[in-house]
């Protein structure tokens, strides 16, 4: 039983990583209609920056915060390229973010080399209701909870958050009432970058990150985000946690090598189920 609870906490922590990447996808998709393939790249850039900052002798905590900022800048730059030119269609923008990811590969390999790097996190274990749990897992879960509360407060309680939501629901009407939709799109991408960055610095101590880790991060994040139709952050959190638990349980009690396959099959099944419920006409209108 103790072992099961350990796996459970482990799964929740991994799922929180997916959920954070997924929430960044949601933030960008809600406002711009673009599925941002570079979302995993923000996490990778932030994680790799954090390793460099720590190696430079900057304190833990400060180094991670700086790395999250780097992620935010990466997000902003991606946004400028992907939606800065007017009239870029969402699916074209998806391919543009894919291209930005490739360009980022070049920069990442140039700066950090092509070998995986890991970031020291919190070590040791804490006892939670008698269950020994790695403290890094607890940190991941706690930070994720705080981030999602802040995200909810931001969208529901601040003027900027309301403006972003307005752009999401009707860009034309938003422009009519004087909201600069393009600037909001940039803000959305920067927000996506920050969320991706948080995911990166939290996940980096759990597994080594190399320049091409972004594929697994983005696919996991997308699987989490698709849960809420790419528009609801809280559903992304639920989806991410469910995915994380599934993956860890398959690893623990099934075949370790098939851990990721469960999540992928799950992703495809969810999408097919969702598409079966929506008629074609509606999809073409979107």
């Amino acid at each position, binding site marked *: 039983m103790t072992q099961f609870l350990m796996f459970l906490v482990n799964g929740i922590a991994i799922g929180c990583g997916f959920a954070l990447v997924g929430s960044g996808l949601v933030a960008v998709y809600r406002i711009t209609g673009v599925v941002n393939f570079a979302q995993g790249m923000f996490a990778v850039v932030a994680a790799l920056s954090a390793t460099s900052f720590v190696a430079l002798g900057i304190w833990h905590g400060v180094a991670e915060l700086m790395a999250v900022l780097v992620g935010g800048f990466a997000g902003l730059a991606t946004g400028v390229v992907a939606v800065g030119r007017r009239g870029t*269609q969402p699916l074209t923008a998806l391919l543009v973010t894919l291209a930005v990811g490739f360009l980022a590969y070049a920069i990442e390999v140039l700066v950090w080399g092509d070998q995986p790097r890991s970031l020291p996190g919190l070590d040791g274990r804490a006892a939670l209701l008698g269950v020994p749990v790695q403290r890094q897992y607890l940190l991941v879960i706690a930070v994720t909870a705080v981030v999602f509360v802040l995200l909810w407060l931001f969208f529901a309680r601040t003027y900027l958050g309301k403006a972003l939501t307005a752009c999401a629901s009707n860009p034309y009407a938003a422009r009519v009432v004087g909201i600069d939709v393009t600037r909001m799109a940039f803000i959305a991408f920067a927000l996506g970058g920050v969320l991706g960055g948080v995911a990166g610095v939290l996940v980096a101590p759990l597994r080594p990150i190399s320049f091409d880790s972004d594929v697994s991060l983005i696919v996991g994040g997308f699987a989490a985000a698709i849960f809420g139709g790419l528009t609801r952050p809280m559903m992304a959190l639920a989806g991410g946690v469910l995915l994380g638990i599934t993956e860890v349980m398959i690893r623990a009690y099934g075949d370790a090598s098939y851990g990721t*396959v469960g999540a992928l099959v799950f992703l495809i099944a969810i999408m097919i189920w969702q598409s079966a419920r929506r008629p074609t006409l509606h999809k073409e209108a979107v």
Partner: protein
Amino acid sequence: MSISARHGARQARRGPAEPHAAYARPRTGLPSPVLGGIAATALATLLLPLVLDRGGLALYIDIALSACVVVGISLLMGFAGQVSLGQAVFFAIGGYTAAVLVLNDVPPLVGLLAAPVAAGLVALLLGVPLLRLHGHHLAFATIAVHLIFLVVVQQSDTLGGNVGLMGIPGFSVGGIDLADHRSIAFVSWGVLAVVVLVSHNVITSRPGRALRALATSETAAESAGIPVGRYKLTVFALSAAFAGLAGSVWAYYVGFLSPGMFPVSMSITFVVMAAVGGMGSIWGALFGTTAVKLIVSYLGMLGTAGGMPDYAPAVLSYAVYGLLLILILLFLPHGVVPALRDRIVRRWSAPPRTPLDTAGRDPGKAGLPPANGRP
């Protein structure tokens, strides 16, 4: 909604006065200069292996085989409006099919023929559930399929697992050995010729027109009586078969297959080549593949030159793929070849206008559509 669907919508907005060159040109009777050009290109590329050195031949084979995959993607994305970011899977399936057969003492020619069949069948099976999805959903589903495929291969003992399959015999037909670089180059040319011919016939046939309608609007196509699901599935299987065919030749050429040779980024590079040349155009696919491969290989040579760090070639190739895709998508969204063709057709058709026609209009802009079709 897909890229080409938007493309189609733009064409529609432009109206019947300015039909898109590709749609307006009569497909059956190609003008003789075009036919001459095609024949000259075919002959020149056929003679090229005779003069190339070993490095040149390797590049030639790489281009020809990648072009087979890219023509398939161009059909799938440009005509059927479906995105696939997992096309390297079918390339790999073709390679593994041929390799397993040949390692079990089946003649290589049978392996070559079985590879596209196997890849096509897998695509048919996968396509039934997957092609219900659209746009970014399908894009992620195909990436997911790619990742699942890699795990399955790593776990399979018959496919060599993580280590891979080694010692795949070279290609031969009826005891005639065709395993050297030059022969494989000719085989690749032949394979590509078959792929181009089949694609051309598909595009110009009745199903080809139906596919174009389907890419514009599935609902409209369906109400016009087009069996949308079946056609999409057929094109998906066809593009997979092309990739499988190329993969089998690749397996004979390299003699070694492992899951590490087929990363997700490989699928994406195929899409880059198709986008550079122009989706929905066979010549675009051929041009895009050749241009991208030549640029990457040239920069790769620069990268391996003296004084460069060992990661330089990787950095340069990633940068080229990224930059090319960004520039093309933002500034030539229809790809290089359709943009050029539009320009040439415009130049040919614009001058012989009657004075009445151009009266009252800016003579320089008479009858020209807005650049890139943007309003």
